[in-house]
């Protein structure tokens, strides 16, 4: 098993005023694209440290939900609370600085920079160093934090390579490293296993299950095997609405869910 990936210090603004006691709370989130409701009236709450899988077919609104949580889109209606604080209209970087992180379904990396530079940038983004005009020294705290993250996602051997030269699976691992920079409190993983080989999937499960217990996450995952092994609870979405919620084992055996999603061999889709 890996050493703890992320320090457990919680010196993030907004820490400790969790009035609702939830890490993430969504109330009545609706996002319209023109006349089309990508998601409608989604109400969801996740406790600190909870690991939740969001399942649903393509077009169910899962990624739109993520974009509303991170602020990439502003919801048409509804409320987003992050550790008790209303962040509905906050720009993305303000939410990230409060401990929210995300990965992207399609790797969104800086392909012209090295692995270390990518992770180092991520570490700068959530520190006050982001405007620093001084080059880092080898013993710089952020450089060392970046090295630890690179190691945690098993990329130490490739740390000086350009990201554009990495294999697909390695790029997916780097996505995760970027999302764990600084002091994350809650992470949104958008299909981290997509396109990975069975070995790489096992590696991914190891990385996700060895995250410190205080870091909760939501994972969008089509691979039920990965999703149910890393998440203790499941939210099913269908046509932009929440269709069913429950513990992983309940959902797995639910006949309606079986019929809608798991049946017919679509699970590995």
């Amino acid at each position, binding site marked *: 098993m890996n050493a703890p990936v992320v320090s457990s210090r919680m010196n993030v603004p907004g820490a400790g005023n969790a009035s609702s006691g939830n890490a993430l709370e969504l109330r009545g989130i609706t996002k319209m694209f023109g006349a089309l409701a990508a998601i409608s009236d989604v109400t969801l709450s996740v406790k600190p440290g909870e690991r939740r899988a969001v399942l649903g077919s393509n077009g169910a609104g899962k990624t739109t939900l993520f974009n509303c949580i991170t602020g990439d889109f502003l919801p048409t209606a509804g409320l987003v609370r992050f550790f008790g604080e209303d962040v509905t209209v906050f720009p993305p970087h303000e939410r990230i600085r409060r401990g929210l992180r995300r990965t992207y379904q399609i790797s969104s990396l*800086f392909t012209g920079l090295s692995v*270390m530079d990518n992770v180092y940038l991520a570490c700068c983004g959530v520190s006050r160093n982001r405007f620093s005009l001084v080059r880092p020294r080898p013993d710089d705290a952020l450089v060392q934090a970046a090295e630890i993250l690179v190691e945690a996602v098993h990329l130490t051997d490739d740390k000086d390579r350009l990201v554009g030269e990495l294999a697909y699976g390695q790029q997916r691992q780097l996505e995760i490293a970027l999302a764990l920079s600084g002091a994350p409190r809650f992470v949104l993983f958008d299909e981290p296993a997509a396109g990975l080989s069975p070995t790489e999937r096992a590696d991914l499960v190891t990385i996700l299950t060895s995250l410190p217990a205080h870091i909760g996450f939501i994972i969008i995952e089509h691979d039920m095997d990965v999703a149910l092994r890393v998440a203790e609870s499941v939210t099913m979405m269908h046509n932009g609405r929440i269709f069913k919620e429950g513990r992983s084992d309940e959902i797995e055996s639910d006949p309606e869910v079986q019929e809608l999603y798991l049946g017919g061999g679509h699970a590995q889709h």
Partner: protein
Amino acid sequence: MSVADQAPRFASPVDQRMWSERIPAPWWIFGLILLLLPIVANNFWLFQIMGWTFILGMIGLSLMFLAGYGGMVSLLQMSIAGMAGYMVAILGPSGAANVSLGLSWWIVLPAAFLIAALFATISGALAVRTDGIYTIMITLAIAAAFFYFTRQNYSVFNGYSGFNLVLPPKFFGVNWRDPLAFYYLTLACAALCYGAVVYLARSPFGLALQGVRDNPRRMAALGFNVTAHRVAAYALASVFASTGGILLVWQNAQIAPGTIGISSAIDVLVVAVVGGMRRPLGPFIGAFIYVLLQVFSTDILGFFGFSADRFKLIIGIGFLAIVLFSPDGVLGLWDRWRAGLAARKAATTGGGA
């Protein structure tokens, strides 16, 4: 123009070698040539050609910083340089004694940099919310507005006639407009600006700026305030433009609206594109070519029987050729030539093995 495809390739962020060991030998030779140039070059070359090259190069460098690293093509850099130059003329002593305040240089110089930085920050804040062609248009609009403002405002900018007899202060008892002293002054400033840009490219701010250029949405998802970062880049780039602008006023001993006209604003873009927008050296190469063409066009054009003010024709044709054949400027041509040479060498040695 996709600047992203041409992102500078970096080594590891932490290089263990001493700074002096990291500079390749050709650079040492190049530096030595520049230092010893006054032995062979006459005053005209030192003052007019090299001095102007360094000045134009610094203003082009500020554009290269914004466009090459930040992906923001700004036509504003000549105006920012002009603002700093105007401030030196307005706050310090000049021939227009009724307008100039005649303050001492240690107030004038910091104030000139600060006011130019403020101008850059405000203009940048307007420009950064746009992209591509719209950034070019809005910065061009601000540059045009500033040009017409200086031409019509007599109480501060002394209108059409501008300021003459704006002379550099006599630091250390040296007459800095003496060709030799001016050459070394501009060389030192250019070297400092160049070094600063090279250094900044690998600082957290510079790395993040390149990240903002390549993928702003991802940068926001890493906690960066993309807008603030871009505006800060405008403020930082203003330092290089202002240095060039102040030296330009000292070189000409005057500044007038013509100095910051639309054609000058576009010339800065031409200089940066011709030299190469990817690396900090590009604008200096571009400036050297531009200055040579402008100064010697009379002879060249006279030879073919054209009038001397047609030199823009030569610049224009050169610009077109560069944009068509090497989007990465003269430095791009050089890179390709070296790559071709290396490939041929590898082919011959590979064939022998």
